[in-house]
């Protein structure tokens, strides 16, 4: 299965990063990242770069009160600072984000709770009466927060985000060929069965089987991330992407 993500024939050399150098070849387009997962880079302000006595989220430059969350909104003086768009999504929610520390296994309810709390602080409605600059900063934070929540809440995009943080981004130009024919055949046969499914019950059967596959893959991903096996995790994420595609196709057919 190591060859799963083998890129097909080398068409032009790319500047190979260390992470990609181990893989046989690369395709030619420096394409945008997979799905809605934005280009992610570890936050430049890692907690370790601060002195031990410094507040975990930094302090307000205006009144020097420590921030109570990762959002640069001061609860003491009400000042709001811009939030870097490269903010690490896990740090935003005060969650472990290394991968080997259980980052993948987050509790969606806990995530939602934190999301709602943070969103209350930066929601545009709460800043409607403030100045244009403040309103804009709050709107930007709210938007980034939505993006971060959306990315982390689903196992697929969460896995892809973790992989991109660890030098294994999903590229639009990744390709599968004979080396992963078992997976491709399973996907093809399922899609064909889906196409010819005659009634709701058959659709539900396909969906249930697909859910089981997805659950299995998510469990695998959890184990692989826990061991820091990034390449294995990337392969598993590809499988999950295909199961997601089947789920989307089932829903599409159920709407008909």
């Amino acid at each position, binding site marked *: 299965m190591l060859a799963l993500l083998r890129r*097909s*024939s080398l068409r032009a050399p790319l500047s190979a990063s260390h992470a990609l150098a181990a893989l046989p070849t690369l*395709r030619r*387009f420096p*394409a*945008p990242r*997979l*799905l809605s997962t934005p280009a992610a880079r570890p936050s430049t302000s890692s907690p370790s770069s601060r002195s031990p006595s410094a507040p975990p989220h930094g302090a307000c430059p205006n009144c020097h009160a420590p921030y109570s969350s990762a959002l640069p909104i001061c609860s003491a003086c009400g000042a709001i600072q811009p939030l870097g768009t490269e903010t690490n999504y896990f740090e935003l929610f005060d969650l472990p984000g290394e991968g080997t520390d259980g980052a993948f296994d987050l509790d*969606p309810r806990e995530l939602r709770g934190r999301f*709602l709390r943070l*969103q209350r602080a*930066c*929601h*545009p*409605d709460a800043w409607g009466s403030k100045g244009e600059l403040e309103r804009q900063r709050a*709107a930007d934070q*709210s*938007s980034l*927060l*939505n993006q971060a*929540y*959306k990315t982390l*809440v*689903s*196992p*697929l995009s969460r896995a892809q985000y973790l992989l991109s943080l660890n030098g294994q981004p*999903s*590229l*639009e*130009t*990744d*390709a*599968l*060929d*004979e080396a*992963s*024919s078992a*997976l*491709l*055949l399973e*996907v*093809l046969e399922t*899609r*064909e069965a889906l196409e010819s499914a005659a009634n709701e019950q058959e659709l539900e059967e396909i969906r*249930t089987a697909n*859910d*089981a596959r*997805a*659950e299995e*893959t*998510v469990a695998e991903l959890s184990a692989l991330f826990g061991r820091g096996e990034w390449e294995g995790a990337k392969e598993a994420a*590809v499988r*999950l*992407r*295909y*199961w*997601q*595609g089947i*789920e*989307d196709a089932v829903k599409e057919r159920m709407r008909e």
Partner: protein
Amino acid sequence: MSAILRTALRTSVRPIAGPSVARAPAVGQVAKRAYHEKVINHYESPRNVGSLNKNDPTVGTGLVGSPACGDVMKLQIKVDDDGIIQDVKFKTFGCGSAIASSSFVTEHIKGLSLEQAGQVKNTEIAKELSLPPVKLHCSMLAEDAIRSAIRDYKTKRTNLAAATAAPEPQPEVAMA
């Protein structure tokens, strides 16, 4: 059990707060994404959809996938004794550009020799269909599918030749 496993794929994302994207003026939203009419034509009435018997020794099957889109593409060629592609069928589950790309190549390589078909470049496909840059990988997938089908056909022929050569004694051997 099922409640847990369903969360894997069925997470509904309902951002509850402010605009997640800057609102575009209403006029901008009306403008449709412009795909070239050839893409739409191939997508709406794809050519050569179907399957050939994959166990037929004259049929080569290519199976490739693009994980970014969750696409899977099967392309089959039927080759005559002169190495000319007589028939082509495809099945693609994926986006419109992937379907259009595979539909287009089935028409394009029918009647070509294996060698000519193996030289089809994704850039030709992309140009012919005027694919936008973000969809270039769909044309690559179609190119990969052709190559994969040719490889499968050649492997079959080689295996077949080996299988028939071994058990069947040569006439002179039989005489001896």
